[in-house]
């Protein structure tokens, strides 16, 4: 943004007879530090470091490796969902049903497998279909009606919340699903979705690895592929994107389905690490995912953001959630802390980007 002062006169330059390799020389390079600060990912990275240092001082147990593994695990369950939510936000849409969709997926897998006494993999597969279908429905309704996704997904949020509770009670007579840990394929599925391994005496949950791999993949897709280009375009200006031939509907619907996929993944993790699912959970999580994406520098109105920013955003949340416990404070403070962090982060982001991009 800072390099625009030359914009006006440049157009009066008479057309060059042929391509020459000279710069037009009317812009000065801004200092590297300023250019870096202008990137929202750098801001959220510094914020994450600040929160980390804060808890290193305030809560001595955080300094241990096992505590860090625990914090990263907490961050990963938020972070895996925050990634597609961030991509969707860059694509210009919201998904308020993301939190309860995780539980819907876990409930589906658990009840389908248990009630029909099938191999758990059948339940896992059906849950994937259901999650993708929910994502498709959200996306399809948004592109068909043109209504704000905020409204559409608020609707699906309420529907899923009610269905989760009612169907679970109808099927199991209880608010939670039955324990599936004795079923065929459970151990196998647990290995895939909820295992852990040891590194230097510290137990590392596998979700941390998934989180980082997904983040790397999302970054690559966003910056290096056609599809990533389309995500920025449909979020930045839907009409322009359509006019130059970008498949807007496909891009939006597939982004919603990507959220469905992640909801399935995290749902499976919940199911196979706790063996049973509480039907009333998940409410409020969607706001945590959205906050992580916003703190990570994704523009609420779409068209800008990154996949790496939400990784740091999710880390900040996981850090605070566990840090409060390690510091021996009342965990009730968590949400208040989050609110302060969200406000602080967006304001610092705003201030930094204004300062760094000043002409």
């Amino acid at each position: 943004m800072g390099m625009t002062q030359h914009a006006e006169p440049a157009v009066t330059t008479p057309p060059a007879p042929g391509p020459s390799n000279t710069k037009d020389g009317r812009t000065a390079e801004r200092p590297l530090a300023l250019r870096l600060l202008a990137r929202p990912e750098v801001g959220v990275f510094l914020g994450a470091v600040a929160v980390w240092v804060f808890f290193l001082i305030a809560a001595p147990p955080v300094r241990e490796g096992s505590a860090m593994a625990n914090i990263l695990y907490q961050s990963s369950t938020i972070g895996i969902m925050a990634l597609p939510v961030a991509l969707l936000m860059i694509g210009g849409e919201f998904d308020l049903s993301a939190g309860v969709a995780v539980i819907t997926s876990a409930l589906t897998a658990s009840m389908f497998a248990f009630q029909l006494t099938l191999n758990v993999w059948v339940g896992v597969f059906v849950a994937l279909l259901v999650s993708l279908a929910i994502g498709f429905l959200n996306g399809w309704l948004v592109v068909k009606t043109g209504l704000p996704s905020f409204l559409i997904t608020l609707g699906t949020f309420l529907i899923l919340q009610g269905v989760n509770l009612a169907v679970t009670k109808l099927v199991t007579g209880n608010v939670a699903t039955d324990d599936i840990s004795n079923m065929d394929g459970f151990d196998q599925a647990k290995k895939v979705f909820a295992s852990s391994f040891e590194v230097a005496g510290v137990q590392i949950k596998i979700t941390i690895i998934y989180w980082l791999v997904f983040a790397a993949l999302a970054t690559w897709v966003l910056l290096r592929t056609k599809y990533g280009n389309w995500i920025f375009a449909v979020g930045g200006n839907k009409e322009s994107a359509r006019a130059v031939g970008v498949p807007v509907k496909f891009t939006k619907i597939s982004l919603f389905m990507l959220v469905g996929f992640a909801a399935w993944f995290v749902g499976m993790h919940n199911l196979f690490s706790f063996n049973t699912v509480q039907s009333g959970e998940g409410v409020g999580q969607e706001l945590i995912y959205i906050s992580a994406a916003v703190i990570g520098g994704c523009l609420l109105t779409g068209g800008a953001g990154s996949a790496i920013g939400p990784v740091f955003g999710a880390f900040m949340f996981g850090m605070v959630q566990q840090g409060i416990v390690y510091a021996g404070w009342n965990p009730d403070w968590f949400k208040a802390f989050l609110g302060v962090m969200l406000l602080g982060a967006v304001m610092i982001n705003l201030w930094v980007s204004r300062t760094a991009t000043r002409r």
Partner: protein
Amino acid sequence: MTTEETGPHGAIIADTPDTAAGGEDGVIVELRGAGKSYGNIRALHGVDLKVRPGQVSCVLGDNGAGKSTLIKIISGLHRHTEGDFLVDDTPVRFSTPREALDKGIATVYQDLAVVPLMPVWRNFFLGSEMTKGPWPIRRLDIERMKKTADHELREMGIVLDDLEQPIGTLSGGQRQCVAIARAVYFGARVLILDEPTAALGVKQSGVVLKYVAAARDRGLGVIFITHNPHHAYMVGDHFSVLRLGTMELSAPRDRITLEELTNHMAGGAELAALKHELSQVRGVDTEALPEEGDLTAATTGEGTS
């Protein structure tokens, strides 16, 4: 830029190719009695238009005359509901802009040509990205895209230091030129320009008009939508005036003068009536205003020049 001689208005006088002998050939896009209704509202009705390579076809009209509807039909955003729309003498019904693009019809929209937050080079290739590598790892060929974009922009006389800057930071004229360069690069045969000069200053308008002429000289058929008859007359080979959804005038350059065009655009007949009313108001010199009779010349021509 252009090799044509310069006429009295500083206009570029194009030698209109005689297509009478060739009949229909050479015509890329043709509308025959085309129209569009939105429900019970008839936005456009009975429009005839021919676009030939190397010619600028100007469509003029006041706000609400149906210019936007006309563009939307040709560019594939909306389907026509009456008449015929032919590309290369074949009737077509586009359902997406992509189909129009595939036929070589590119549109440069007034304000929705670009995604402001995206870098210049990404905008240049948006929707037609260059890729490399086999499928699972097929990725953008960023190096080649930046190089090509820079080359094409320099060909058009636009020199940018940093192709990474968001296109929203360019001036309006530069953005138009980037969009025109993009359309030319992607092999457009017909270029639709939607009021490219409407929001620009005098100098910038001149630059855009130069690129219109440049595109024409490269052999593109240009549909130039505007409500500025002066801009239209500088580059146009054929002029159509829309009023209230119908074609009020269709004339080749040699059958109409700038004055007549201006009067038509200003709403000739209505102005004559207004003149009568104004003559009863003190202080308005109505002698200098044209009479309705001056406007009858070249009112309706056949297709094109």
